[in-house]
């Protein structure tokens, strides 16, 4: 039985179409990440699923039961949906202690609820926080309490709205892992909204990429990374070098050399995207040299990566300037580790085919 189903859901705020014909299904135990920039409608989907926004078009079902459908039925109110929602700013009740917050959604008597809430806290070694008020908690503790509060009533569907976005970088990783293990234990459908592609890769069983209210791609993390559906999706996973051109004889000319294109795109305008991570720079003297000769313009070493900007050495003015629409003429490369490269070096550039994508240019 499916856990959560969106079927043809659209939603407007005034004249703005925030969600446009979205359909997807999430199965119990599955974790889905809604990935997209802010304003793409992903938070609205969560609010619709929770019943915090009235349905306008399409229908939503939880556990096979329709909870909201445009027109016909009165929709189920949020309290009757069996949905847990972790808000971006946690929305802890400031007038209740930690244990009272967690107890809030539990049915049954006061004592019983209190005991269960305390057990939940004890399981995570957080007993000492029980009597504290939310304003006396750190950001990470607040996030944990919000998660435990939403999980306590054992919802069938867990919705998380950018749950890690307000945490410090170093805390985020730890809290993410802990959150996922808690969610995995709950057996609920998990839908997590994020604008961070790396986070989505880390957490999701499936990634649903959204843009301007529409689903762009719905696939496994590996698939989304290896075969992005369009330029927008490719760009979510880090910087790309983009070139526009026309396919002639099965390939597109770019400053990185000709790039092979599928037959179906022959003589069409296309965008070529090459990930900065997909660019290799080799010594000119190395046996495998070849590729495009480039000169290093700048080097920025960030520890994990080295960001390098290069320009083609022997390119004609036109080829170097073939960068269109404000794209910098230089080529961006992201090399692993502390690459031993210096400004002014001359190197041979290779674009890895698995990081090179060709997308048709959409008209209009």
């Amino acid at each position, binding site marked *: 039985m499916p856990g959560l189903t969106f079927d043809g859901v659209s939603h407007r705020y005034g004249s703005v179409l925030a969600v446009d014909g979205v359909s997807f299904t999430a199965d119990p135990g599955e974790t889905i990440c809604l990935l997209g920039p802010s304003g793409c409608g992903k938070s609205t989907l969560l609010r619709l699923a*929770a019943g915090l926004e009235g349905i306008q078009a399409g229908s939503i079902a939880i556990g096979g039961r329709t909870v909201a459908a445009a027109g016909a039925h009165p929709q189920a*109110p*949020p309290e009757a949906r069996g949905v847990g*929602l972790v808000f971006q*700013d946690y929305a802890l009740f*400031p*007038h209740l202690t930690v244990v009272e917050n967690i107890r809030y959604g539990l049915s049954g008597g006061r004592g019983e609820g209190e005991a269960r809430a305390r057990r939940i806290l004890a399981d995570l070694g957080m007993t000492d926080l029980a009597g504290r008020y939310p304003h006396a908690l750190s950001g990470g503790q607040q996030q944990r309490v919000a998660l435990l*509060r*939403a999980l306590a009533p054992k919802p069938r569907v867990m919705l998380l709205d950018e749950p890690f976005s307000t945490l410090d970088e170093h805390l985020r990783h730890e809290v993410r892992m802990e959150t996922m293990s808690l969610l995995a234990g709950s057996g609920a459908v998990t839908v997590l909204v994020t604008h961070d592609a790396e986070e989505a890769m880390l957490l999701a069983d499936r990634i649903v990429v959204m843009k301007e209210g529409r689903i762009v791609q719905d696939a496994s993390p590996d698939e989304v990374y290896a075969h992005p559906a369009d330029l927008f999706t490719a760009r979510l996973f880090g910087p790309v070098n983009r070139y526009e051109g026309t396919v002639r004889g099965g390939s597109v000319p770019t400053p990185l050399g000709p790039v092979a294109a599928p037959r179906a795109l022959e003589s069409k305008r296309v965008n070529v995207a090459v990930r900065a991570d997909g660019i290799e720079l080799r010594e000119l003297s190395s046996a495998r040299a070849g590729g495009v000769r480039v000169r290093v313009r700048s080097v920025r070493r960030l520890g994990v990566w080295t960001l390098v900007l290069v320009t083609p050495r022997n390119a004609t003015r036109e080829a170097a300037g073939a960068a269109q629409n404000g794209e910098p003429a230089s080529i961006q490369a992201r090399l692993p580790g502390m690459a031993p490269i210096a400004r002014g070096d001359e190197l041979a550039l290779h674009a890895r085919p698995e990081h090179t994508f060709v997308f048709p240019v959409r008209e209009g």
Partner: protein
Amino acid sequence: MTALAAAVRRAARPFLDGWTVAAAAVAALVAVPLATIAYRAIDPADDTWSHLAATVLPVYVSNTLWLLLGVGAGTIVVGASTAWLVTMYRFPGRRVLSWALLLPLAVPSYVLAFVVTDQLEYAGPVQAALREAFGWTSARDYWFPEIRSLGGAAIVLSLVLYPYVYLLARAAFIEQCFCLFEASRTLGRGPARSFFAVALPMARPGVAVGAALALMETLNEFGTVDFFAVPTFTAGIFDVWLNMDSPAGASQLALALVVFTLALLAIERRARRRGRVYATTTRVRKLPEYPLSRAAGAAALAWCALPVLLGFALPAGVLAAYAIEFHEAALAREYFAFAGNSLRLAVAAAAVTTALGLVLAYGVRLSRRPGMRGMAEAATVGYAVPGAVLAVGLLYPLGAFDNAVDALCRALFGVSTGLLLSGTVAGLVLGYSARFLSLSYRTLDAGLERVTPSMDGAARTLGSGPGAALRRVHFPLVRPSLLVAALLVFVDTMKELPLTLLMRPFDYETLATFVYQLASDELLEECALGALTIVAAGILPVAVISRTITRSRPGHRSGPRPG
């Protein structure tokens, strides 16, 4: 480095000390009457207290407590429920009601008391209509609740004071992150349970502040309780002073009343602090304005319209009808002379009080002495102290001042100066200033918040001296607050009754005292024009307040959309 900075600051202090002295002088305006009361109350020569304690005191205490309880419950139920409905739900008339619910604030309680009595007494239209309808001939044929009673006073006062709770509860509901209510819904509680479990507790500080303000007004209240013959503390002060001719006894009662007041004040300040702790919200979302079904919408409309009808439309309508019908009698009663007195007094009080409030607000900001904030808080206690208490406390120092000046002048110049402050308009204005100082101080203090220290710094580094910075930066920024402060004091002075009754010059009438006296003699028709004038003036601050709250919500026109 810090030592150097401290030294520089210390060196700069003498210049700022003028502010400290001025602020201290302003604070004395409130401190002196309170100290006087305390001093006179413990005067061992007077044994009125034991007499009072044995006779009337228990009555005063129980009446005052019951009245506080009734008004507290009434204002909270009406104020909080209407605020919630108007904030959260969409129903016919909601937009109009959201500001109309403030209108009863414009009606002085004694005016409503007179009107309600006029309508409900035996000879009034309601009972006449009942007799007509049921064929009753005399009062013995039926039972009708006595409006001139403790319960009646509680109802009347609740009807004009609930806007304090409404105002602050509404602000609290608007400010609280709506996501908390939503979180409660997703955790399985319906709208009604979520209201009681989350929204109301979150708004509790606001509701408490509003109720405390309403109760302070209740303690100050004289006209209604006097007319309804409900002997409370304030009524007792009048009685002991004017009828029993015992100023010391009045001081003792006043001191006891101050204890009540300080308790309320403590509740209010504590609630404000709590409110700050609760204000942890980070995101403001457009409020949902849930639509209501037709029946529920009609019920909400009826519930929210009722207090407006009873608290404003009824008195305004009755007074307007009388004012038109009896305008000749009203004008013959020197309406213009009294209106002129009221106007002059109110303008003078507004000017003086705003100026004093400005001195205090600047004093606190400029001299960063730790004691200053506390002094300012003490100085603004006046608003909580009932007018009758302030009057009792001010008369002695003013009289002593007059005598001293008179003696000095006679000794030096052989001229008698007579009464300068006691029993004069100047003394009355001073009394208003002591009472309404916190209105102007708080308004101006909030206004000055907008002038950040870095703006000062910017002005100074761009070449303005302290005076030029004041004129070119501070004044334009503070000007709206100055106007609001002056307006609030102006209107409250127009309405003020107990202080005016006790401190006015002999034979000097304002609209308020005139209305009170005529209406007490059941001549409401002839003073209706005067009462209506006070109500009309009272609408001004209501308009200002309702404009500020609609503006207070960030992005209230185009709330941020959820991503």
